[in-house]
């Protein structure tokens, strides 16, 4: 049986003393957490271990003794062996190292001497690291060995609070024995965040944002962000790694969003860009209307050499032309107010770039409302025609659609029913190309607008869901997000046990983004491509961007 001892690198050159650590349940291994030096009183050591065990929830104990004898200390080995009687243990490890020698020597008392394997680990990195896939924080004896090692080290934080500047009775060596590090900026931010959170939560209580309409994407984005702010400004601190990462990602995303929004505002309000945009908007709308009129004139003639039904063509064409005329008058009516509207709309970029994009998407939807109307008229007409044609085709063949059985059944019609049916069928069939052409043209225009809106929505979604904090953590402090470990051989001398170095294998960037993506109101199309094409063919109205409610974990 191989006994594995996980030994921290910070204690490689520690003075002689007692090893404090924990045996891993279910496996033949032990984790050394700290070394307590001489002089100490055994009763105080036991009390200290008891205190730390209750504070951390980890079953700590004295594992054995460590000796790195300097010239002054002689006869330390015997003293260390005698300590065994004071701390009665099942197994007592006696690890020793001579100066100048890389490998350790270890002997286990009271057990048969099996092979020993030393695995060196960096205590600070392992303490801060989180193994993925993330599981519960408590120690579970059925977990794998490495996961238990990581959990034991991260839960033993109370043990690392004793540093060498303390005046207490015990002196120990661990990664933080040189003194705790803290950052003034972080402390100041923590103090400043308390009143800030209180003000934000008060503001959010005052403004009830729950009744907002769910059609306009600006309102949806507003309610989404207010939910986030409410979660952030709650007085409870984050419990567990996932919640902490979620909160941090949301905070960084909001800050980056607002920074980009301010940049956009700066660009908009400097150099008179707003008046330029406003002056360009009305002629652009005019231009679009003129192009549409030309298109309709082309359709009313002989488009692509096809011969249309003159009467139906004129009716439909005149109807749509009148619509465009109404639209143009409306735009001209609005033109003096466009600049003010744009000016106030630009202020929304102060809330964040995602708001500006959502507002832009809504404005695009409003400005192209006539295209949407045309599409609906064309689609309804086409849909009616298709259903009429299919039903009359069935009549032509002597069949009928059975609504009860949801299938096609044969049916005997009267002669006059057949006559009228065939007549109507011929009329609809010959009018079919005209309607189909109008439908095709307006569907293409509508799809163009939908694609534009889709791009804007996807950008907003990207800004909302990208876990920037997690990516930054992966790039700067890669040991915090661990996918696994990797081993390499440290020391392979013939007389000493094998020493391995355990390093943290960081998570790949793609997995980081996948694991820590903030859930958003997803606006991906809910139909697959085949369904979409089928709907287009039949003439059903398509709503590709349906807002789902935010998924809660």
């Amino acid at each position, binding site marked *: *049986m*191989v006994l*594995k001892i996980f030994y921290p690198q910070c204690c490689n050159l520690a003075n002689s003393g007692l090893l404090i650590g924990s045996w891993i349940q*279910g*496996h*033949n291994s032990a984790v050394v957490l700290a070394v307590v030096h001489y002089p100490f009183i055994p009763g105080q050591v036991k009390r200290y271990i008891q205190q730390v065990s209750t504070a951390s929830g980890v079953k700590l104990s004295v594992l054995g003794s460590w000796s790195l004898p300097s010239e002054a200390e002689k006869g330390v080995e015997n003293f260390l062996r005698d300590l065994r009687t004071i701390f009665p243990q099942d197994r007592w490890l006696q690890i020793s190292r001579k100066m100048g020698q890389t490998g350790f020597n270890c002997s286990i008392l009271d057990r048969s001497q099996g*092979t020993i*394997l030393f*695995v060196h680990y960096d205590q600070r990195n392992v303490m801060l690291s989180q193994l993925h896939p993330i599981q519960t924080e408590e120690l579970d004896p059925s977990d*794998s*060995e*490495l996961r238990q090692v990581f959990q034991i080290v991260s839960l033993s934080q109370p043990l690392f609070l004793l540093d060498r500047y303390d005046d207490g009775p015990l002196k120990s060596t661990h990664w933080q024995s040189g003194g705790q590090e803290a950052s003034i900026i972080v402390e100041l931010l923590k103090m400043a965040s308390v009143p800030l959170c209180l003000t934000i939560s008060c503001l959010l209580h005052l403004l009830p944002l729950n009744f907002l309409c769910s059609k306009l994407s600006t309102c949806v984005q507003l309610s989404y962000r207010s939910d986030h702010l409410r979660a952030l400004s709650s007085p409870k601190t984050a419990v567990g790694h996932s919640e902490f990462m979620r909160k941090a990602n949301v905070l960084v995303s909001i800050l980056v969003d607002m920074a980009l929004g301010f940049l956009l505002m700066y660009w908009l309000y400097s150099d008179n860009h707003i008046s330029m945009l406003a002056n360009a908007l009305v002629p652009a709308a005019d231009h679009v209307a003129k192009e549409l009129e030309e298109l309709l004139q082309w359709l009313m003639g002989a488009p692509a050499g096809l011969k249309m039904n003159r009467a139906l063509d004129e009716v439909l064409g005149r109807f749509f032309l009148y619509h465009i005329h109404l639209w143009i008058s409306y735009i001209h009516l609005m033109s003096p107010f466009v600049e003010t509207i744009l000016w106030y709309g630009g202020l929304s970029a102060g809330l964040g770039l995602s708001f500006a994009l959502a507002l832009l998407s809504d404005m695009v939807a409003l400005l192209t409302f006539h295209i949407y109307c045309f599409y609906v008229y064309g689609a309804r007409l086409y849909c009616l025609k298709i259903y009429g044609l299919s039903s009359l085709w069935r009549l032509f063949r002597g069949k009928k659609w059975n609504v009860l059985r949801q299938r096609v059944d044969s049916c005997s019609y009267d002669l006059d029913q057949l006559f009228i049916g065939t007549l109507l069928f011929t009329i609809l069939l010959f009018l079919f190309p005209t309607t189909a052409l109008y439908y095709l043209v307006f569907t293409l225009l509508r799809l163009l607008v939908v694609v534009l809106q889709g791009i804007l929505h996807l950008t907003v979604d990207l800004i909302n869901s990208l876990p920037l904090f997690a990516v930054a953590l992966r790039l700067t402090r890669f040991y915090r997000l661990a996918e*696994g*470990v*990797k*081993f390499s*051989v440290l020391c*392979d001398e013939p007389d000493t046990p*094998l020493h*391995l170095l355990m390093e943290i*294998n960081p998570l790949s960037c793609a997995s980081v983004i996948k694991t820590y993506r903030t859930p958003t109101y997803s606006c991906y199309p809910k139909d697959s491509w085949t369904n979409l094409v089928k709907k287009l063919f039949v003439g059903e109205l398509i709503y590709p961007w349906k807002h789902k409610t935010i998924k809660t974990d």
Partner: protein
Amino acid sequence: MCKSVLQCQHQILCTMEGESFTDINGTPIFLDCQSHSTFCREFTVTSPKVPVTKVIVFTCSIWLLAYAVFLFTEDTVVLTSAILITLVSMMLYVHLVKVEQETLFIIGSLGVQMSSSYASGRETTTFIELNKIKDIVINEAIYMHQIIYYLCVLLKDPSDPDAVSSVVPLFQLFCPPTLERTASTSPYHNIPAYFQVSGLNQRSPLQLTDKSLQPEL
């Protein structure tokens, strides 16, 4: 509790330092094995570096082609794009495709570690813990017109202890097309022999050697 003991067969000594084999494409590769302890072994497969002649031929052919196009079009964009394409494709090849060395590190009672190092110095490592490993077997596959043998790890399914959740091939580089039966020349005999996990599964360890005694196809 997982009781795993690595039984090293001392009769099969590591006689293969620096022995050369060929992989499926016919390029020669080297296998090296190092034993750090009775329960810890490291197997390294090295592939030879890209020969300079190939690099020169590749760059010259692309640049001559670009120059020919330039003579027709008289546009320097062709030349700059050819240079950029060569540089970027060589960098991507060296960083992502060309595996220089693969190492299989077997640590008794801890697990198996597989690491590949690329020609640009990048190293990717995966460590599989012992409690997730069901077995290490030699698997055969049909690749184009030949049958190749490759070493792979069977991983346990967490919900069903008897089922196999996934098969992870070790050694991307090293798939010999024929499996020689003599112990001294075949590389694949020795690797499972050093890793015989007793008590981990109900099958006998001889299963591993049985696979190697399949009739030659």
